[in-house]
């Protein structure tokens, strides 16, 4: 136990555990903690008064501090039982609309919301904005929603940040959900930041895991951070709603129950009297004869090791045999061989196909975080130590140019072709 010259037990930062979040620096009442030249927290023992605040606030138990007579608080104890924030109830999903229909990620979230709501013994809410969209409520009910709250207005006919932000904020203020989930699409991320700021509440992006903590009834939101190298579990104790965005294909699409009924509530809404942006033109992505890689049940994915235009005929042929689509990892996009729309990974798309064939993909963590939902992963790579083999259900160590023709032949035989 470290004591300073005044005989006070002082805190010590374990340098190998500190993540430099600086929370303790902000918490220390006497300014005894600073960042070291290595960028980690460092306690000045002569300034430390031994209050233990840094230890209580440290998210990773990097503060070593033993004070006589004081029982060390466990992490559980510190997460003080929460009575929740009174007056807020229900798990809400923002239903994103595209071409007059709810997008799939909204239904995936509806399934997750159902699960969370059952744990909390509350109801599932759908928030729906647009013009002439109330028919979508039926789909929401079929996917497990109990109540759909709708605001319709011509200004909401196409998405713009300001009016949507205003309208969704109003719905939250009227309906007061304890949780609000949104798809981590371009629109969802654009909108979530606006609404969370209006409501001054916490927002956690790109969550891959959502659960309710039994004792506190808090939403625990787990997300990849530091480029996917680390998972952080986040919570929001004092503000409501607890907001979270989730990427498409991360949560499982719930089974649809046609004819399931629910309640539809309309809310009057008028746009704020300010000049709004005007959408001049929309240009759809040409998918170049292929389909959206997120929707494809099978993917053949070219990585750095197959970054060769010559290879693409072979990969395309394999994709056709398995009924799939050609996708790629980042180096292939950077080399200009395939468009960004085909990129799987942290900076590309998250996918969850039935079959995922990685060709020359080494398996960097940024790639692996985006394929966790894949059912079967097949890896073909000449390097037996490539990290992709650690996650692949089946691997073939070898040169793809020789392996794939053989693979196609044998597969065709087995398929009876």
């Amino acid at each position: 136990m470290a004591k300073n010259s005044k005989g006070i037990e002082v805190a010590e930062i374990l340098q190998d555990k500190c993540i430099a979040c600086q929370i303790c620096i902000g918490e220390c009442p006497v300014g005894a903690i600073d960042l070291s030249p290595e960028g980690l927290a460092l306690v000045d023992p002569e300034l430390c008064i031994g209050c233990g605040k840094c230890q209580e606030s440290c998210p990773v138990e990097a503060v070593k501090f033993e004070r006589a007579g004081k029982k060390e608080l466990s992490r559980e104890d510190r997460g003080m039982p929460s009575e929740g924030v009174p007056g807020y109830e229900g798990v809400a999903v923002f239903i994103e609309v595209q071409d007059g229909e709810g997008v799939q990620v909204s239904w995936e979230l509806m399934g997750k919301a159902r699960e969370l709501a059952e744990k909390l013994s509350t109801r599932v809410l759908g928030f729906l904005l647009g013009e002439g969209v109330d028919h979508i409520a039926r789909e929401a009910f079929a996917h497990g929603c109990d109540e759909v709250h709708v605001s319709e207005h011509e200004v909401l006919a196409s998405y713009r940040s300001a009016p949507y932000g205003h309208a969704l904020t109003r719905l939250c203020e009227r309906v007061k959900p304890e949780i609000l989930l949104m798809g981590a699409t371009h629109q969802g991320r654009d909108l979530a930041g606006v609404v969370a700021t209006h409501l001054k509440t916490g927002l956690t992006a790109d969550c891959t895991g959502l659960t309710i903590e039994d004792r506190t009834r808090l939403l625990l939101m787990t997300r990849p951070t530091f480029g996917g190298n680390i998972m952080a579990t986040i919570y929001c104790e004092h503000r409501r709603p607890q907001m979270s965005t989730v990427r498409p294909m991360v949560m499982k699409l719930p089974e649809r129950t046609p004819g399931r009924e629910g309640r539809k509530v309309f809310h009057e809404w008028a746009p704020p009297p300010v000049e709004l942006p005007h959408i001049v033109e929309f240009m759809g992505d040409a998918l170049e004869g292929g389909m959206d890689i997120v929707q494809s049940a099978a993917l053949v994915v070219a990585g750095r090791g197959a970054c060769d235009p010559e290879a693409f005929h072979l990969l395309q042929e394999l994709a056709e045999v398995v009924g799939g689509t050609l996708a790629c990892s980042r180096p292939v996009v950077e080399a200009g061989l395939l468009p960004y729309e085909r990129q799987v990974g942290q900076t590309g798309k998250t996918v969850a196909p039935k079959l995922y064939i990685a060709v020359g993909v080494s398996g960097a963590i940024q790639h692996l975080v985006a394929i966790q939902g894949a059912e079967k992963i097949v890896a073909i790579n000449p390097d037996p130590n490539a990290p992709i083999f650690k996650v692949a259900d089946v691997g073939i160590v070898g040169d793809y140019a020789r392996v794939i023709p053989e693979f196609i032949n044998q597969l065709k035989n087995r398929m009876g072709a």
Partner: protein
Amino acid sequence: MHSVCCIKQVPDTAEVRIDPDTNTLVRAGVESISNPYDIVALEEAVSLKDRYGGRVTALCMGPPQAEHSLREALSLGADRVILLSDRAFAGADTLATSYTLSKAMEKLAKEHPIDLVFCGKQAIDGDTAQTGPGIATRLDCTQFTYVLKVDWVDLQKRQIQVTRKREGGREVIRGPLPALLTAELELAVPRRAPLPLLISSLQAQVEAWDAKILEASLNELGIKGSPTWVRAITSPPAREGGPAFDVSREGEAQAVSMALDTLMDEKGFLSKLLKRWEA
């Protein structure tokens, strides 16, 4: 035209990982860099200055060593740089961060009204993409995220038109100034710092603002102003891998055959494949 660009200093995330044996964060040798999306945003701000005249101010919130990112901004053409640094800012989530940055911009705007605010679409360490929309909301300016191109700015009519990414394609959208833009990598190609600017950037005095100068409410800053907290930090879940068959040992035909046997082991795999995965 006055543009303000927000820059974040981030660890080079490719190198951050958890040691699987000790379950601790490995940081040794991890360098700090300027968030690449922010540098693209800065480049666009500087090239618009070249086109329409005016000034570019770069802001960075962080510990004192974050001034390196601001020196980089000077070398790339920013006219003025300000470091927002205070113990009270530490531990901020995106809500508190957007508060701090918008307070700085309110103060800047008193000297020179702001026409455009630039941010990267997201930072590579947190990947949240939340700070930009937070600032736009607080400053009540037009919000354009995922911007691919600035088509034009009309300072007389106080309008801007951009091309931005959205689901399924791109949209051309125009709206009133002031506006906040978040940059996709395609927005601009950062220039190399010219030698004279590089040298003067190293000698420049970096202005620093603290909570007091910002006249910020202490309850909205840093950890106090942050509704989200970290409960735990872990390694990503590992997926259980299966066997790998080596062509150099088995030969192509045998390796492929064994691999396919493993795949077909799962009941229904072949029939799903034959039905082209339709349920």
